[in-house]
């Protein structure tokens, strides 16, 4: 289905739009309240962006430093150019250890490479343990929001889902639903032999990975099983341990409107002594999958500064109406509209750069000041540049005629008079499909002006 058709379907779904309206509004209010608790919000944004820019300009160096320090601390670092390789590496780690139950904490990168399907194809049973991810996994769906995967579902829908899949009494009580999930997932944690997590930040200086969460499922995932696999995009690295401070000031406030999420796990290698707590092995999979190509220009490079807080989704007038699934990509909203075409190819998501009003709300809320509208325009230009053949010729002809007419006042007046007489509107179909173009006034301003002067001169 195209973006246009799935967006239409979403717009017709009253339940979905109600859920989205409530959730994104609440997210926005909480974010603004939390922002006010940081004395210098703008300063923190500038600092975080400067750190990201510096890192990206020397990404090769910082990745090598991170790898060396993580391996010195006992981790194994694997490199994956693409999704298939990353799935292969993780699948092999699981197979070599005879893993059966795999518990997972939230990881957008794992969604991006469709890791669950790859593991299932090997006969493994990956279990999502973040409540929102667990809900969408039970429903056979994907996440519709970076931070709140089940944001599109009402409690009634979740109650019905749990009654069907878990055999619990249907209940509209959110605490009872959460308790049912806790109980079921505890059994999976008890038997899990492999844990897979994402990574929020990777510190080059120390080889530390940081995982941010609220529920405790990421802590269980990275503590109980014998083997822990952490999957990270190449852009997650930051230079110094002390740099974590500014990112931990920005991420919880922007994401959920908290000063601090309930848990941060800072993991440096595997356990050191046999009687230490935690996994015996830590494997870190470093994923490129199209990211390195974004380094080629300063405009696209800023995509890699994203810390996946989801604030731009909540602020976006398009996302707020249609939700995440309409984007037909694991990454939705404004950041998804710029990330998806770059990761998965313009051919597959050529409509996404147009899924925006270019109002700039996304840029205004971004904690690392990514100029998403500029990126959208850049990608639109690429879409147009790639379009070959008849459409392209007609479009070029239209714009060169437009330029010729606009540059000649006499010709312009003549063309406009003809257009008014014949009631012709310019043929801009894609534009007028969703917008009304006002009809031309019966008389132009110049004509009215001249007539007005005559009328006044008459008496």
């Amino acid at each position, binding site marked *: 289905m195209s973006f246009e058709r799935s967006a239409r379907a979403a717009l017709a779904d009253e339940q979905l739009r109600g*859920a989205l309206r*409530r*959730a994104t509004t609440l*997210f926005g209010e909480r974010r603004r309240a939390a922002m006010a608790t940081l004395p210098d919000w703008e300063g923190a944004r500038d600092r975080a962006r400067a750190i990201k820019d*510096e890192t990206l*300009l020397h990404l*090769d160096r910082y*990745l090598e430093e991170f790898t060396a320090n993580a391996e010195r601390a006992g981790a194994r670092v694997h*490199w*994956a*150019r693409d999704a298939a390789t990353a799935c292969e590496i993780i699948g092999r780690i699981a197979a070599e250890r005879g893993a059966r139950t795999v518990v997972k904490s939230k990881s957008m990168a794992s969604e991006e490479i469709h890791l669950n399907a790859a593991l299932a194809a090997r006969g493994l049973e990956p279990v999502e343990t973040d*409540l*929102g991810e667990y809900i969408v996994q039970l429903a056979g769906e994907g996440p519709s929001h970076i931070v*709140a*995967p*089940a944001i599109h579902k*009402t*409690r009634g829908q979740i109650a019905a889902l749990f009654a069907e899949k878990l055999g619990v009494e249907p209940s509209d009580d*959110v*605490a009872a639903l*959460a308790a049912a*999930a*806790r109980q079921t997932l505890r059994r999976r944690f008890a038997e899990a032999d492999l844990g897979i997590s994402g990574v929020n930040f990777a510190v080059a*200086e*120390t080889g*530390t990975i940081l995982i941010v969460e*609220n*529920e*405790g*499922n990421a*802590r269980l995932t990275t*503590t*109980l099983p014998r083997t822990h696999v952490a999957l990270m995009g190449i852009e997650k690295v930051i*230079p*110094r341990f*002390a740099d974590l401070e500014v990112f*931990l*000031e920005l991420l919880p406030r922007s994401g959920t409107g908290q*000063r*601090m999420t*309930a*848990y*941060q*796990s*800072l993991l*440096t290698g*595997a*356990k*050191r002594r046999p009687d*230490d*707590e*935690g996994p015996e092995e830590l494997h870190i999979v*470093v994923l*490129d999958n199209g990211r*390195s190509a*974004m*380094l*080629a*220009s*300063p405009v696209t490079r800023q995509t890699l500064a994203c810390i996946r807080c989801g604030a731009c989704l909540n602020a976006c007038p398009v996302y707020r109406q249609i939700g995440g699934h309409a984007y037909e990509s694991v990454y939705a909203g404004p950041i998804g509209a710029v990330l998806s075409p770059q990761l998965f190819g313009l051919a597959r998501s050529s409509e996404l750069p147009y899924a925006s009003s270019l109002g700039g709300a996304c840029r205004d809320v971004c904690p690392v000041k990514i100029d998403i509208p500029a990126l959208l325009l850049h990608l639109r230009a690429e879409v147009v540049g790639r379009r070959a053949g008849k459409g392209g010729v007609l479009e070029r002809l239209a714009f060169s005629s437009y330029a010729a007419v606009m540059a000649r006042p006499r010709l312009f007046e003549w063309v406009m008079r003809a257009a008014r007489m014949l009631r012709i509107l310019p043929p801009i179909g894609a534009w007028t499909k969703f917008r009304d173009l006002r009809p031309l006034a019966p008389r132009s301003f110049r004509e009215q002006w001249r007539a007005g002067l005559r009328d006044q001169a008459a008496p």
Partner: protein
Amino acid sequence: MTRPDDARRAILRAIRENLARGEASRPDPLPGGSPPDPLPLRAGSSQGVRTLFTEQLAAVGAQCTPVCGEAEAGRALARTLAGVHARRVVGSDAPLVQRLLHALGDGFVLEPLDRLSRDELFACDAGVTTAQWGIAETGTLVLESAREKSRLLSLVPPTHVVLLSAGCICESLGDALARVSVASHAITLITGPSRTSDIELTPVVGVHGPQTLHVLLLEEA
């Protein structure tokens, strides 16, 4: 399938080539190395920092009881555990925790941490640990794995009781980050009980981790 080293070389080459396309010249990296030395404890755990810490603990839904000396800490621990109807209690290997637990008296079953199976651990009612640092601005507790076996006890049982020395409260996250040591393979920052808002953004506590977080703030007697 490429060999592992090939993948690493290919990614690093792709990064360098793409950066070279976008930048005529790359500026030198920022001076690397270790971060600046930690500042002296700002306001040195003064009364103001302590007050801010307890206010923030309350704001994130954690309980806090100030106690003076070990004897009072022991009595407060017993009251706290009884208050949540905890029977099966497991403590970390911190000497202070062990002393307090063994002085608890009747009514509690003390489980030995190093001999617990996963299922037995899941059946415990409360975990007792210390925290190495507190962070006043956010009401956060910092637990370092090299200092104590506290990873599972602070996470799995429905109640987590934490002993924190009042002299170890940092003002900010930055202060705390400058003090922890990555000699710990796991550093855990805990701010309030486990929580979720994944269903209609309605807050629920205790989804995977503890529902109750109780801090005993220890002043020297």
